[in-house]
């Protein structure tokens, strides 16, 4: 499982995984590095990975625009949550965590994985039976979340003032909204193409 974990770390900074990570990174900032949100992000990614190797969901078609709309709505909800009057902080944190997990799970549909040796073996093995590959894909998805962990820790280390945190949240949320809107209107492939060409040029 360790090789899968490290292969995913390498893939996490490549275009193939960057689009999957975008909403998770955004939510890590918007939720101010809250551990509950990070845990939910990891759970969402792992569940999405299980679904991916089960080979029951198409990577394109109507699912992509719908997923874009879901992520768009969810990020807007999280950005708007602090303005809800008298919302208890624990309730807000629970909502944020639930949304973070859901968004990351849905965003696994955006994933165009780099199929290296380890993920390739997982996918090949999953054709014979998914069960045996669940530990491997779990390790892989957790490895892919390494940049999110880095951002969570960075936010906690900086511990920005409420005003700065709000601005950072709006900036990150804005990026997330733009990406989600692009996916919702069917521009997913163009995003991946742009990222790919930008990083390989």
């Amino acid at each position, binding site marked *: 499982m360790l090789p899968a974990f*490290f*292969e995913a*770390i*390498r893939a*996490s*900074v*490549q275009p193939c995984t960057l689009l999957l990570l975008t909403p998770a990174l955004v939510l890590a900032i918007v939720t101010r*590095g809250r551990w509950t949100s990070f845990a939910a992000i990891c759970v969402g990614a792992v569940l999405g990975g299980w679904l*991916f190797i089960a*080979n*029951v*969901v*198409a*990577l394109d078609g109507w699912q992509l625009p719908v997923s874009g709309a879901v992520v768009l709505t969810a990020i807007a909800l999280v950005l708007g949550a602090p303005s809800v009057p008298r919302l208890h902080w624990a309730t807000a944190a629970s909502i944020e965590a639930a949304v973070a997990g859901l968004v990351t799970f849905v965003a696994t549909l955006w994933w*165009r994985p*780099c*199929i*290296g*040796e*380890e*993920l*390739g*073996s997982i*996918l*090949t093995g999953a*054709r014979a039976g998914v069960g045996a590959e669940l530990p491997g894909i779990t390790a892989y998805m957790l490895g892919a979340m*390494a*940049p999110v*962990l*880095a951002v969570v*820790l*960075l936010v*906690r*280390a*900086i*511990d920005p003032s409420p005003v700065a945190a709000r601005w950072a949240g709006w900036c990150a949320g804005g990026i997330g909204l733009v990406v989600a809107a692009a996916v919702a209107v069917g521009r997913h*492939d163009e995003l*991946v*193409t742009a990222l*790919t*060409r930008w990083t*390989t040029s």
Partner: protein
Amino acid sequence: MNPRLLAGVGAVVVALVIGAAFVLADDGDPAPAVQSDAAPTASTADTSPTTTPVAVATPDLPNRGPHPELVDIDGWLQSDVTSLEELRGKVVAVQFWTFACRNCRATIPHMQELYERYGDQGFEIVGIHAPEFGYEAEVPNIEEAAAELGVTWPIVLDTNKRTFHSWQEGPTAHWPRIYLLDRDGNIRYDHIGEGRYAETDAAVQALLAEPS
């Protein structure tokens, strides 16, 4: 310890782990298999993948039945043949690839080694080019990439990815993916992604050794 300091140290550690994952990454198992009874030659001192002997057990090669058809293809490049049926009697590696896919590109040197080693023994490679992005569908771009990468074997143009999806079960299809066909056109080996090069080499050897 101060929680902020702890988080900062943690962030640095995670960043270092990400960096280390790149630095410590090896190149998979580039060494091809050779017959386990092959005598080492003087050139085995060479560290190049083509000459490093690695004995690998032959993988199971169950007969998964005849290969699917090539569906709605746009032609062939670098080839005199126009169908897989014309390659009956040969062991054929069918690889789904697209030139901008970095994992596909990483497999090319290993495919070249197979081609050089077994090309005159009844082995053929067919690269089915199924573009992921629009610019990958342009034939001049494919030809340029093939020349740059050293892809000298026949290429099937699967612009609409109909063959790509019809060969691969379920709603999700992958690049790179290699199938080995025996001399009768049956699928005998299948691997998704990079790697398993020695195993693939051993499978090719085993299929070539089967009576036609």
